[in-house]
């Protein structure tokens, strides 16, 4: 199947003291995370994509359409871009009930038959809320209404600005799980702002790393977050994202076995269906390197790897080690002293120990 054309942006904009240069190519399928620390200009970039911010200068194309070309004085207003935009604190229409909010874009899109309104309502748990006024909704409910409202307007591109940032533990996990479900069946590309790498690891296929208004790295998620040259401000993002298939689940120990190219990982899960695809993130700081396979260790996971390269970390006491685990790239953050003691040179075989407890519940 031919890969659908995505978004190509070359936009600049002054935003107070920050000058933003958004040069990115976002694929036409899957979830792209715009990741970066607070104040990196993520929301400004998303608003320029949506056309809500006219101060950007440059070129923006989506698919075969030119949404903006400042030199040719082209600017497509947001209502003609067919985007679904969900702001960080979504504005619901206070004069309408939940159903009225959901139907706002749905009606204007001509009630497209390829969208299953009822299924989306159930998928996001909105059935019982339909007749409610929006003023009384909780933060999580407002987000869910805004997301389904955007989806029902039949967009060609979905833009989400940190939908989880204002939510507390349970509501956050609930919405994250629903978004994972959406990711699995969504036919259109989605761009997702986040400053939490665990969200990105679970949702994104592609990542654009922003720092101080600039795109510092972009590409497929796993390959990008295991690069050794990430700027210091984004070092927290460093780590591997493993996608595999559940091959076993031990309900007594609450452990699932995830089989991927590089071996098998045990991770804590209360339930997991054999055959399900699952993602997990191995943060660079959670990896211990040993020269031999350990026997008396509490770490449940030991993966046979080969050193690809050793790079600088954000502190002189530390090194980042890029590892090849049977085709999957892992990253380990270790002290410079250990790197010296183990004499880590490219091609050297090592074992990567990962505590299962570091892989989330």
């Amino acid at each position: 199947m031919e890969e659908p054309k995505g978004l190509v942006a070359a936009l600049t904009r002054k935003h107070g003291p920050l000058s933003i240069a958004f040069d990115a190519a976002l694929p036409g399928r899957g979830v792209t995370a715009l990741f970066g620390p607070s104040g990196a200009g993520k929301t400004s970039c998303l608003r320029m994509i949506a056309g809500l911010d006219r101060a950007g200068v440059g070129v923006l194309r989506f698919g075969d359409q030119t949404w903006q070309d400042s030199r040719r004085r082209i600017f497509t207003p947001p209502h003609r871009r067919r985007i679904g935009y969900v702001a960080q604190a979504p504005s619901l229409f206070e004069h309408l009930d939940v159903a009225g909010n959901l139907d706002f874009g749905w009606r204007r899109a001509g009630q497209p038959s390829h969208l299953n309104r009822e299924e989306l309502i159930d998928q996001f748990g909105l059935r019982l809320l339909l007749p409610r006024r929006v003023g009384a909704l909780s933060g999580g409910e407002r987000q869910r209404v805004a997301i389904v409202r955007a989806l029902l307007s039949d967009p060609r591109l979905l833009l989400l600005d940190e939908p989880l940032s204002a939510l507390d533990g349970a509501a956050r996990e609930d919405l994250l799980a629903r978004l994972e479900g959406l990711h699995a069946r969504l036919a259109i590309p989605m761009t997702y702002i986040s400053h939490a790498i665990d969200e990105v690891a679970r949702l994104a296929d592609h990542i654009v790393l922003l720092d101080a208004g600039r795109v510092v790295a972009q590409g497929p998620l796993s390959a990008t977050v295991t690069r050794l040259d990430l700027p210091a401000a984004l070092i927290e993002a460093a780590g591997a994202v493993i996608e595999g298939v559940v091959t076993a689940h031990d309900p007594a120990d609450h452990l699932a076995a995830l089989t991927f190219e590089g071996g098998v990982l045990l991770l804590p899960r209360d339930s997991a269906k054999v055959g399900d695809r699952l993602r997990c993130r191995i943060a660079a700081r959670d990896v211990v390197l040993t020269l031999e396979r350990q026997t008396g260790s509490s770490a449940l996971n030991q993966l046979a790897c080969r050193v690809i390269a050793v790079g600088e970390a954000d502190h002189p006491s530390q090194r980042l080690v890029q590892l090849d685990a049977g085709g999957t790239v892992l990253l380990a953050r270790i002290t410079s002293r250990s790197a010296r003691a183990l004499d880590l040179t490219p091609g050297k075989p090592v074992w990567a120990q990962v505590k299962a407890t570091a892989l989330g519940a």
Partner: protein
Amino acid sequence: MVGLSSEDLEAFGLTLRLAATVTVLLLLLGAPLAWWLARTRSPVQRLVAAVVALPLVLPPTVLGFYLLLLLGPHGVVGQTMSRLGLTLLPFTFGGLVVGSMLYSLPFVVQPLHNAFEAIGEGPLEAAACLRAGPFDRFWSVALPMALPGVVTAAVLGFAHTVGEFGVVLMIGGDIPGQTRVLSMRIYDHVEAGDYAQAHTLSLCLLAFSFAALLAMTLLRPRLRANG
């Protein structure tokens, strides 16, 4: 206190007709104007806002006087109108409508302006991303969300028109069934020493004004709770 004469009733009916006409026209005209004032980044915005607010501080007689000059047979508007074969506006119901509209303009535009500003960018941006064009956003989002402001504007515009006197005196005159409104009638009664009639009509106006303001305050919180 005595009952209302047929002339009083006629003045009553005329006043209500005038106020209703002016309110409807002002809402139709004031809503787009207030929307523009709330949304524009044009440098003339402040100038226009000041002109709209002018009748708040201008003595109504001054406003009426200039209107009389402007609309009269020697005024620019008056001459244009006679050239087009139209009846001159001074001392007609139409003239009263024009004068009252200018006089009550700020009372309609300012509540609308405030209500539109209070909506903020969020809902309008959300509507734009849900495929609503500019007019659609005004009609389906801004107006319904500004409904309490619309109610305030209508009540204030209506009540203020009912109570006007100076503009009427200048541009309307005192023609029964045409321009003789309640305030004019009260003035006539007092001039004629007929305090009892003046009292009846005054009391009616007082009760009406109070009822209008009461209705507005009772209606507003309910609208807010619903929307």
